[in-house]
């Protein structure tokens, strides 16, 4: 195996319980997003667009769809000899085996994979964030600082700061002074984006040490980073400016989906300089019927629209029948809204059905977004 500068480890094993019905059958990174994509496409496309050709995808929760979707990484042009995408599930050895106990444990159990590729640096990514980033710029900053660990950060609104891992930095040189997971009284609004670049030797040492600590929860944010700070290691931050959203909750999933609409969205799927790639099935162009009304929407291949759709995202192979109305909603692949039904501010799971004349959801933004699970049929009175 030739020596590599940087490989990526993509954490894709979480259950994504905050996405409720959407992740009852599939892992969060495999959830459909933006009409024709799945959430993991954004991280994998970032890797491909950043020239990172070796990606380990750490899977654990309901991995089947995710594994078959990612495959050998061919859809992202990552199926290179001596590189490519490897699915890394928990495994057994002569000493036994165990599930991944935390983000750090997942990577620790795959130190062998890292050693086999023998990179200078390891990029740790989450599989559930929506953003475009050229990781090469972050790596350059890591090298310039001669850092042990670089954490990508971005300023967030102060009132939201207590939802994130918050970083206090030295204003002179971006060195990290303090890292607090979800602080009640944040003293900074620089949030960790969950994107880390480690120098490989330090990562391996830190993970091996952490594995032996019975008090550790084996999590990067809670255990590894505080420990490295305590040891006075060279931790730096890399400030990112641009669109970055966590799509891990129903409300952020809905809101971020709606952010894709409009003529000049902040996150533009149409940006050809940094394409988002996906492993799609070939379906014919979508059909808009003679009496259909379509406004302010994204509509994917294979759809048929005979009713009215406004301010919504319609994924591959959805059908909206005559007299049906869909507004402020996200229809995941194969969803069917039957004649006369009215769907507002809802997320319809894959291959779900809303029966004729059913009213689902409300445009009232103070109400919760309605969510229909994959394959679920919503009839009258439900």
């Amino acid at each position: 195996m030739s020596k590599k500068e940087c490989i990526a480890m993509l954490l894709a094993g979480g259950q994504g319980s905050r996405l409720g019905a959407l992740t009852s059958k599939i892992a969060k990174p495999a959830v459909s997003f933006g009409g024709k994509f799945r959430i993991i496409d954004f991280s994998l496309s970032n890797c491909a667009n950043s020239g990172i050709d070796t990606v380990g995808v750490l899977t654990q929760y309901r991995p089947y769809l995710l594994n078959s979707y990612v495959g050998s990484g061919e859809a992202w042009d990552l199926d290179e000899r001596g590189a490519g995408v490897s699915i890394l599930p928990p495994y057994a050895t002569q000493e036994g085996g165990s599930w991944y106990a935390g983000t750090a444990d997942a990577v620790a159990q795959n130190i062998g994979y890292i050693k086999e590729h023998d990179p200078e640096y390891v990029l740790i990514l989450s599989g559930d964030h929506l953003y475009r980033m050229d990781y090469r710029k972050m790596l350059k900053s890591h090298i310039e600082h001669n850092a042990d660990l670089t954490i990508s950060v971005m300023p967030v609104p102060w009132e939201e700061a207590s939802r994130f891992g918050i970083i206090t930095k030295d204003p002179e040189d971006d060195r990290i002074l303090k890292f607090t997971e979800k602080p009640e009284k944040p003293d900074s609004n620089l949030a960790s984006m969950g994107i880390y670049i480690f120098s490989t030797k330090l990562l391996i040492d830190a993970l091996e040490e952490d594995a032996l600590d019975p008090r550790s929860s084996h999590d990067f944010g809670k255990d590894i980073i505080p420990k490295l700070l305590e040891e006075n290691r060279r931790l730096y931050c890399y400030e990112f400016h641009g669109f970055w959203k966590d799509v891990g909750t129903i409300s952020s999933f809905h809101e971020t989906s709606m952010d894709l609409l409009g003529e000049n969205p902040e996150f533009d799927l149409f940006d050809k300089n940094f394409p988002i790639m996906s492993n799609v099935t070939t379906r014919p162009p979508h059909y808009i019927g003679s009496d259909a009304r379509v406004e302010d929407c994204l509509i994917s291949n294979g759809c048929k629209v005979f009713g009215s759709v406004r301010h919504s995202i319609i994924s591959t192979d959805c059908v909206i029948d005559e007299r049906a109305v869909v507004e402020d909603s996200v229809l995941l692949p194969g969803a069917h809204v039957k004649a006369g039904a009215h769907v507002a501010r809802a997320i319809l799971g894959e291959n779900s059905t809303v029966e004729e004349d059913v009213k689902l959801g409300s445009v009232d933004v103070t109400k919760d977004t309605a969510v229909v699970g994959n394959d679920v049929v919503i009839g009258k009175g439900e």
Partner: protein
Amino acid sequence: MINRKAIGYITANYTCRTSSKLTECRPLAALPVFGRYRLIDFPLSNMMNAGIKTVGVVMPSNYRSLIDHMESGRDWMLDRKKGGLFLLPGNAFGASKRGMRFLLRDIIANKTLFQRSDLPYVVMCGCNIIFNIDLAEIIDAHERSGAHATMVYCRAEREHDDDVTALEIGEAGRVHALHAGCSFGDNKFLDCCVINRNVLLDIIDNYQDVDHLDLFEAIEPEFGRIDVCSYEFKDLAFGVFDEQSYYQRSMEMLRPDLNDRLFNPDRPIMTKAHDAPPAKYCTGSTVCNSLVSAGCLIQGTVRGSILARDVIVEHGASVSNSIIMQSCVIRSGARVENAIVDKNNVIPAQTELRGTPDATLIIPKAPLATKELATLD
């Protein structure tokens, strides 16, 4: 289960009888159709859906766009270790001829493809006729019939069709004779057949002196000794032989019932995969009775039209009863009616392009803009 009974042979070196602006810049097999497909997608997908893993494609002389489209054959599962996609040399002779499209000279020149296989059958297809067919069922029917070859036909639905061949069919579906041209109700040959591989190899060895003929023309005098059966295909089949038939067949796909039949998800039609995002409809856009492909951005009005990938229709622009190919931009206030606008055209603001339903206006393919050229690999 994978059907390991046949190999495929596609003749992609034929064009259409009248020269057209649409086929001046590309072989007919690579002609874009129904928004995101090209004609060759149909025979390739039909073979894929029958589990055929070895396909030889007889190439036209101007093959660039065809190779660009097929690449390694990956989208049709043809990037195989065993078998796969084979690009074969083709003859320019007779490329615009009427009738059948299996020139014996090309078959003889590519004997190796047939010799190397150990499977009993060869499925042959042209590219001019669009249909979604269950070839596995036809191979089975051929096997049951015990015939040496089976020709696939449908009932002709138009008064006169000079571009195809009629089959005279007798008892037990045996083909007795061939006639150039078809009338209403005739048995129209669909340029699709199954033939026993060893029979084909015999023909290759014994008919070299008439290699200027089509395969079935050459063996017609010996129908009987060579047992040729027929199979009636009862679903949609669209021939593309000139601009008018191309336009009309395309517009018929705006009927959802026909569209569902051609794009039956049980037998998917595959094409080269692209990473275009879903189409975006802006506030103020009006779209009805149209097929719209991925990557389109629509601000204006689109009626009764087919839009290929990455088409932009700006505010105040209108497109009706037209086919707009990939990466065209219809600028603000422009009007396009009864037209076929080939790839990469930018229709300037406030211009009007009008054809009539009987005389479609054709705007030929435009060169790539310099900026785009710079970003090509």
